[in-house]
């Protein structure tokens, strides 16, 4: 109980004084996850739309695989990426191991199935609604996808934020591929693991509260930017 209270006060103090180390690792957390999110959306959203509208035989299989991949343990993804990016691995020459780039790669792999799955469901529902009209209007495949993506943007935003949540709180994969190197690949979650391992519970809790605050702030900011609560516009 003492730890939780001292954790809260420590968190407050760290944020108030804009503690340099805190700013650095919080900034890196955001950098890694937001970059991963951007890349993942560029992959997931068109993919989700394509699966929703294209008729192909293996569709049910693809959707089942996608849903299964959502349950992929992040730490296993991290391990596989590690083995591939290690100097003695196939992509070792890229020298990406233990850099933020490796962490971004691991996070992209983890959140793409999640975003694709959620987005696909909404797009599919909208497609059922628009189907007769769009067919009648003779839309091309890309016009179809663009229309569906744009008109379901609210649901797609939710999917993206789900991906963000998954990424910002992830620790296993990025610990393995990043190495938690001080001033290079340390982020909030790996720092929490480190401090906990040192027995510094109050500091770990403080970092935890900062992480929660950050995640909430990002969510609020995106909703505010998108003005999703304004009636009648979406």
């Amino acid at each position, binding site marked *: 109980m003492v730890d939780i209270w001292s954790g809260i006060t420590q968190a407050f103090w760290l944020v108030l004084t804009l503690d340099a180390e805190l700013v650095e690792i919080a900034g890196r957390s955001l950098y890694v996850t937001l970059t991963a999110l951007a890349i993942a959306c560029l992959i997931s959203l068109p993919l989700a739309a394509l699966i929703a509208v294209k008729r192909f035989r293996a569709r049910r299989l693809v959707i089942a695989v996608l849903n299964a991949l959502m349950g992929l343990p992040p730490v296993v993804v991290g391990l596989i990426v590690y083995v591939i990016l*290690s*100097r*003695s*691995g196939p992509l*070792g020459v890229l*020298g990406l*191991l*233990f850099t933020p780039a490796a962490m971004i790669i691991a996070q992209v792999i983890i959140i793409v199935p999640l975003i694709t799955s959620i987005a696909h469901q909404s797009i599919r529902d909208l497609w059922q609604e628009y189907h007769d009209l769009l067919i009648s209007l003779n839309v091309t495949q890309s016009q179809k996808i663009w229309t569906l993506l744009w008109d379901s943007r609210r649901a797609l935003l939710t999917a993206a934020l789900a991906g963000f949540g998954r990424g910002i709180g992830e620790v296993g994969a990025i610990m393995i591929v990043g*190495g*938690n*190197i*001080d*001033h*290079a690949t340390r982020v909030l979650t790996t720092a929490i693991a*480190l401090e*906990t*391992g*040192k*027995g*510094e*519970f109050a500091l770990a809790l403080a970092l935890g509260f900062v992480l929660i605050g950050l995640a909430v702030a990002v969510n609020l900011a995106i909703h505010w930017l998108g003005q999703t609560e304004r009636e009648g516009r979406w």
Partner: protein
Amino acid sequence: MRHLFTGAIAAFVMASAAQAADVMRMAVTTSFNNSGLADVLLPEIAKDLDLDVQLLVVGTGQAIKLGEAGDVDAILVHSRSAEEAFVEGGYGSHRTEIMYNDFVFIGPKDDPAGIQDAEAATAAMAAISDAQASFVSRGDDSGTHKKELSLWAETGLDVAGFGGWYNAVGAGMGAALNTASGMPAYIMSDRASWLNFGNKGELALLYAGDPVLFNQYAYLPVNPVMHDHVKNDLALKLEGWLTSDRAKALINNYKINGETLFVFNAKEAE
């Protein structure tokens, strides 16, 4: 919108190029990192050599693996047999001793196994085994873990035959100490990690001093013949510094709560 995008890219590229310093990666053990000595040495290294040493803090087993794979430029570990195998296998160019600290026995304050008055480290361990008192082992193939196992062997006991009182947690020093604190249980720790540990709870330092518990740290650059991409020049530069009088002063003067932790014992590099 496009301007914002190109601006962001430019900033990113500039930020990455901003480090004028040389950068190398070194794998070190959790015991070394938890001692806090790294936080003292690294800034000095940066100042003296304009060298940014990125530390990967892992167990000895993983450190050796990282060196074998060529994912780091040098390693600093404390497990002589593993180090010699490393050099023998051609993965490390050579081995340089830097300093030593010691291992201590930690346990519940009331000392149920009565190790405080033990005559030797092996006697203490025998006492714990006889009493079947809870014991936490690193269990992670680290230098500390290997040391612990060698001591059990010297006591003449077989770890494989131990009952439920022996808990191998497969974790770093801090995490293992956490577990020991929570149980509470006996545990063998390096002195530095213990002094720096923030969650002592019911635990206390019960036995120390047997010379067999001394713990030698050595520095091994990864062999450039094996991996030509490693920054061997920087690794050698760092080695020079670590065996210098400057390092000697910093290491010997490093204290926690007034206690020195490490003893510098490097021979001057030829």
